[in-house]
């Protein structure tokens, strides 16, 4: 531990050289900006900005890349809060809690909460990376396919907690999400499924056009048809940073939950393949059950506690994903897979020997994360007044602009016109389903989680020669399954207890 601390100090001294500091700042600012663009998101953002680093020295290049990466995590929340268009899948829950706050004129507070919680979550993730990174990576390796399948199943079943009064509708939404994710090539057998002869469907439905349509374009339809009154859809909130800030009491009340959700996020983040979405979602669900302010959460009015839970978990997970990347050479998410490409382009070989062979590089990167996190917080807070001014734009002007951004964002994802048509169809269908009380959030969450779930279930069955008991024989997997069973049965049990109480 002490040796790690000394190495960190050495890394910090390298990271604070003016050149590296500038690289970190530019990376962070660009990352925030690109992350905030609807439809671009962290993966595309990192990929698009990767070539910028090619003209730099390796340490500065990687520092800049890391800055882009966690800047993206900060920025992903902005479009979710302001426009109801999540930049990336973990930000789906941020949109659920943050956008209702924007409609109540509290966008500034939501943005401040997102920045504050991102900072706390990111910091806890970096501390974990510094202190116990290699050790955690070894624990992560104990998560084989059965454990990962059960963990994802737990995440899928916890969607049930968001279903509200009619569980049927939530289940319909969950099943629809899984079924949409089934379209395209089956990752296990390379068979094509549910393509109905269309070449466009061979690679499946992309996440970005789907989410842009479901959250962005359906929002435009709501605006213009009176579901959201056009002139009242976006209220002008308080414009200065000072007035957007949380009170000292609120920040103190957020800290324990930030710590909890960051630990959950960091833990899930370092599991290869689990990613920020699972962590953000599970942390949010956990807070909806145990938080003192759980009644405010749920998306009707929006809550700083909901925004905070998602953002701290997401940022901790995004840093946590560096643990398997650096220690084992396994990318924990698709964005870290892009970073892996960047590292390899510089001749670095992430893996168990990286910390021994390239200590300067590793510790400079970790050191720059501390600095980058502070820089992102400062920049994130500084742009709040400008973002708030954006909210002064009346909704009837905003609606066509959002439509254009939806079209451009959907196209930018894969440079395909099919993606744009997908966005349109997703928006119209979501609008119709919402009118029938079928929520859109479970659709998108199950769409994101289902491929991992299916892949891991089939891998687990493969290694056990089709023995379904494998999920019960592994202790970690059994724990997650029991937890999932409790989540599924709890609503019925609570109902029964309440009925008995009334009977008495």
């Amino acid at each position, binding site marked *: 531990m002490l040796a790690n601390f000394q190495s960190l100090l050495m890394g910090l001294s390298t990271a604070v050289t003016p050149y590296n500091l500038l690289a970190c700042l530019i990376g962070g600012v660009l990352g925030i900006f690109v992350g905030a663009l609807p439809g671009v998101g962290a993966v595309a953002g990192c990929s698009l900005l990767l070539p910028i680093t090619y003209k730099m020295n390796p340490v500065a290049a990687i520092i800049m890349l890391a800055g882009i990466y966690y800047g993206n995590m900060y920025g992903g929340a902005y479009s979710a809060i302001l426009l109801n268009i999540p930049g990336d899948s973990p930000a789906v829950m941020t949109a659920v809690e943050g956008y209702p706050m924007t409609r109540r004129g509290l966008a500034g507070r939501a943005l401040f909460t997102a920045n504050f919680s991102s900072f706390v979550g990111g910091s806890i993730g970096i501390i974990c990376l510094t202190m116990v990174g290699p050790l955690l990576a070894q624990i992560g390796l104990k998560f084989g396919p059965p454990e990962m399948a059960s963990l994802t199943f737990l995440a899928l079943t916890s969607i049930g907690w968001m279903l509200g009064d009619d569980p049927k509708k939530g289940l319909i939404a969950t099943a629809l999400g899984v079924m949409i994710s089934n379209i395209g090539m*089956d990752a296990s057998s390379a068979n094509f499924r549910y393509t109905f002869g269309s070449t466009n469907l061979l690679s499946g439905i992309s996440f970005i056009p789907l989410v842009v349509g479901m959250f962005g374009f359906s929002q435009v339809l709501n605006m213009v048809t009176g579901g959201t009154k056009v002139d009242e859809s976006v209220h002008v909130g308080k414009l200065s940073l000072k007035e957007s800030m949380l009170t000292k009491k609120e920040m103190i009340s957020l800290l324990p939950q930030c710590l909890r959700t960051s630990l959950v996020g960091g833990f899930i983040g370092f599991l290869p393949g689990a990613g920020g979405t699972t962590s953000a979602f599970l942390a949010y669900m956990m807070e909806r059950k145990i938080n003192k302010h759980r009644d405010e959460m749920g998306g009707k009015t929006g809550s700083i506690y909901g925004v905070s839970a998602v953002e701290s978990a997401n940022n901790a997970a995004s840093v946590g994903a560096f643990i398997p990347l650096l220690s084992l050479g396994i990318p924990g998410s698709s964005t870290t897979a892009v970073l892996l490409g960047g590292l390899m382009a510089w001749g670095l070989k992430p893996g168990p020997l990286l910390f021994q062979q390239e200590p300067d590089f590793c510790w400079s990167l970790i050191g720059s994360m501390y600095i980058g996190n502070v820089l992102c917080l400062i920049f994130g807070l500084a742009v709040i007044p400008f973002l708030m001014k954006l909210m002064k734009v009346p909704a009837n002007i905003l609606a*066509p602009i959002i439509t254009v951004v939806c*079209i451009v964002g959907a196209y930018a994802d894969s440079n395909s016109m099919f993606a*744009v048509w997908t966005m349109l169809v997703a928006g119209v269908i979501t609008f119709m389903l919402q009118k029938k009380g079928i929520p859109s959030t479970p659709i998108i969450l199950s769409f994101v989680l289902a491929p991992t779930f299916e892949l891991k279930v089939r891998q687990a069955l493969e290694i056990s020669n089709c023995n379904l008991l494998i999920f019960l024989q592994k202790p970690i997997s059994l724990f997650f399954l029991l937890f999932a069973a409790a989540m599924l049965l709890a609503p019925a049990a609570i109902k029964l207890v309440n009925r008995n109480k009334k009977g008495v």
Partner: protein
Amino acid sequence: MVSDLILSVILIILALVWGYIGIFQLGLWIPGVSADSGFIPTVFSVVLLICAVLSLVQTLKKLREGGAEGGAVENPLSNFELPAFIRKYSVVLFCIFGILCLQYLGLVPMCFLLIFGWMILMNRFPLVRSFLIAAIVTVCIYLIFDFWLKIPFPGLF
């Protein structure tokens, strides 16, 4: 109520199609090896089927109760409002127009024409104001997505 019925029927058909392909075309199980490509889709199509059937039964019950109590069965057009209907579909038409513009003309004409047309036709804004808004947004979108991020948009311009 009638639209609920239609939705349930559509979902049942979707679940049946998904399940049929899953069971008969993709296959559920490769004995001794693993689950096949149709396993997970079939499981979730069954979930959808059960929920949709329950939803259908519930809706039919409500319809019957409404009929038995002498209450009029809801007219599907009772909540129909022409202005809202036109507004909703004009937005979809604007979006389709935008997509076609992007495909055949390019990014700049799409942005400008969509926003300018929307301002004039939907918002009834004056010509100059509409022009200015459309021009400013088009320049911003062009600078970010085309000039900076170099996304290869289709079309002529």
